[in-house]
Structure formats: C-alpha cells, structure tokens
C-alpha cells in the first residue's frame, strides 16, 4: 500500500494566508493544488514535505479572462476548464489541442495549470505551450508581485523561478490578431507523458510569417523552445521548405535522452516531424484553411 509519510496539513483561505503559511513552514512546506503530481511523488518518497498547504480553497485563482491585450489564466484553473474555455479556444487553439492529450478526464478535473508548470517535469505539455506563446508568470510574495517570462520560469528539471515563500498566481498570454496555433504529441498510450511533443503559433502579415513561437516538450529543449528555428522563420513565406528547415533546426538543437519511452534518435526524429506538423497546422489555422 502506497501512503505518503506523515505531514502537517494546513488549508489556506486566501493567497495572503497561503504566503504566511509558506513563510512559517520554510523550505519543507509545499503547496497542494490538484495534487496529481505531488501526491504520487509523496507516496514514492520522492517528495517528503513536512507541511502541506492546501490551496484548493483559493477559488479566486480559478479563472480565464481577456484582460486588455492579454489573456489571464488563474493558477488554480483546472485542466478541464482550460480545455473547455471558449475565450482560449477563440484566440489559441493550441490550448485545447494540448489539454485533450494531458492525462485523462479524471485527472483533468483536479489538475491545475499552475501546478503543472510548477511541477516543471521536462515532459510537461503546458510548459511547451506557454513557452511557445511567450507567456509570463505572475509570482507573489507577502511583500511583492513580480512577473517572469515563461522562458525564464524553468530553472531545470523540477525547478522553477518560484521561491520558497512565493506563489504563482497567474499566467498571462499576449493576444495576437490573426494567429494560428496547434499542438502535436506522440504518447505511448492515452494519458501518458509525451514521448515527444511540439507546439507552435504563427502570425501571418502580408503573406509572410510576421511572428512565430515554437514549444518543445520531452526532448531536452532549453526553456522548452528553440529561438534559432523561430528566427529562421521570421519574414519567410509560410512554405514547406521554410517549415522543414525550421523543424530540422529544432531536431538538431534539442537534447533528448534515451529512456523507457524511446531512444534518443527516435525522439529527435519525432521533434522534427511534430514541429513540422504543428507549424503547418498553425499556418492553416492562421489562414483560415484548417483541415
């Protein structure tokens, strides 16, 4: 029987309360959001916090809204809400593409967007999505609020920019008119972590690529992205050659590792094919010719 080691349980009633509990608990306190990464890790003793601070009562962090020129997503927004969000679907179909293949409907009822990116698993899908979109993370402490670019958010496997007495409260995504976006993932079975995955957005201006973002998960891409491939696409016509060249750059510059999900060369191959597909679908959606 898998049971977590004993811990003290606290239930936060507000962000301020959660922050004061984090300050009291020090480095051995952990926030409990959906719990679908943390609780399994606690059962395996990969995580052994002395204090769990349950933030499921912070329903004021559960929202998706259009705030001026940015989409604002509360950190406690459940995967199921992100999947069904009309406003996200209107601006970025990459969210629904990715959410549909994150875990399963039961896990999506509990798991949160904030918990997912704070878990910082190298194969986590939303990290690639948000990196592609150049989102920003809003992080609060008891004394200050700061923002961190998603591309600076992850400091390594299971490490983020969020400090021990801080809490991620919101993710902000710039709205880009006339944009198309998509996410492509290969998994061994429904609901599994990615063998490899890629996401993209493309904005067309006067028939050329005016703005583009690429996200990569599970293939050891620095900051879940590939700026070199993005730069190669800017100003180019959205041709098969340009897309193929960018995908090849992604495959060459990422660092996948051989593990039980597949060998390194296979994952590199997937990176190329999936970036290609994500870019092509983004272009089709940007031009309104989505298949």
């Amino acid at each position, binding site marked *: 029987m898998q049971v977590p080691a*004993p811990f003290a349980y606290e239930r936060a009633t507000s962000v301020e309360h959660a922050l004061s509990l984090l300050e009291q608990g020090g480095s051995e306190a952990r926030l409990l959001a959906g719990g679908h990464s943390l609780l399994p890790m606690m059962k395996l003793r990969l995580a052994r916090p002395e204090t*769990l601070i349950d933030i499921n009562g912070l329903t004021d962090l559960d929202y998706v809204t259009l705030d001026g020129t940015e989409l604002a997503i509360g950190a406690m927004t459940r995967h199921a809400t992100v999947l069904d969000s009309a406003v996200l679907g209107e601006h970025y179909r990459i969210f629904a593409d990715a959410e549909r293949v994150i875990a399963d409907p039961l896990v999506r009822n509990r798991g949160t967007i904030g918990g997912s990116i704070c878990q910082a698993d190298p194969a986590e899908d939303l990290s690639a999505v948000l990196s592609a979109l150049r989102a920003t993370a809003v992080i609060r402490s008891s004394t200050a609020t700061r923002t961190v670019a998603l591309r600076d958010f992850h400091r390594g496997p299971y490490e983020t920019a969020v400090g021990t007495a801080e809490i991620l409260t919101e993710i902000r995504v710039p709205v880009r008119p006339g944009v198309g976006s998509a996410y492509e993932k290969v998994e061994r079975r429904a609901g599994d972590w990615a063998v490899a995955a890629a996401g993209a957005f493309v904005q067309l201006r006067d028939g050329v690529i005016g703005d583009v973002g690429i996200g990569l998960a599970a293939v050891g891409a620095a900051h879940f992205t590939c700026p070199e491939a993005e730069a190669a696409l800017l100003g180019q016509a959205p041709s098969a050659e340009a897309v193929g060249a960018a995908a090849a750059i992604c495959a060459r510059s990422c660092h996948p590792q051989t593990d039980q999900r597949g060998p390194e060369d296979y994952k590199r191959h997937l990176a190329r094919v999936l970036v290609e597909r994500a870019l092509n679908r983004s272009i089709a959606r940007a031009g309104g010719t989505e298949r």
Partner: protein
Amino acid sequence: MQVTVTVNGEETSGDIEPRLLLVHYLRNHLGLRGTHWGCDTSNCGACTVWLDGLPVKSCTTLAVQADGRRVRTVEDLETGGVLDPVQEGFVQEHGLQCGFCTPGMLMMARALLDRDPDPDTTTIREAISGNLCRCTGYENIVRAVRWAAEHTTAEVTA
C-alpha cells in the same frame, strides 16, 4: 484531524491522519468497499468517485480534502432496489469480466451521461480513457454505456 464528509447524502465524520487517502477513508473507515483500490498511482481509475459532483481518483485525493464536501460512490447508483441504467447496461451487454474496474467505469459513465445523455462511441471512449480494463478490450463497456443512454430507469425496472 476531525473531518465531516457527506457521502451518498449522509453525513459521516472521523478523526483521521492528514495522509489518509480518500479511497481508504471510504473503504476502511466507512466500510464502503464498492470503490476499488487499484493501482494506487492515479492511472487505473478503479477508485473513481465523485467529489462535489465531479469524478476524481480517490487514491490521489486526501480524505481531508473532502472535508465539508459531497462524495458519491458506486453504492449510491442503485436506488430502492432499482439499478441505475448504467449498471443494468453492464449486465445486459456483459460489460465486465473480473469486475475490478467496474465501480470506476460505472461512476465515470454516470457522470458522462448526466452531461451528455446521447454520447457517440468516440465520446464514450474519451470519457473512460482514465479507467483501465484489462479484460474486455472495452468493446462491451462502450456497448453497456450506449445501452444506458438508450434506456431509462423505468425500462430497467420493467
């Protein structure tokens, strides 16, 4: 820690350790063994129950997280000796062999049909993608959920 959880419409309470998982609260403290405890890793879905109306995996939910909330388990599907159509569907279409995944399948199927009374087979397969069955190959389970969609409680009684 003292908790009060409404389970199948009845208030229950207990003095529990924070690390107690909801599945063990239901099975060991309340004796509701209908909810099965399977993989323990949030993969198999045998432990599926409803928390405030939403299906969740009770092996990956702490019992203290259900404090002050409503839980519904498979025992609540039958009312007054009459099976829920999803239960009758599993009987009619032979939707189980060993029966281990069945409680989770039933709770997921009921949640699906409450939201979408006439789902196609693709929708059904997506809905139960977090519930693993190692016997049936899912064909009969999908048929069982379709049977439930096509029959009302009154038809089950008859």
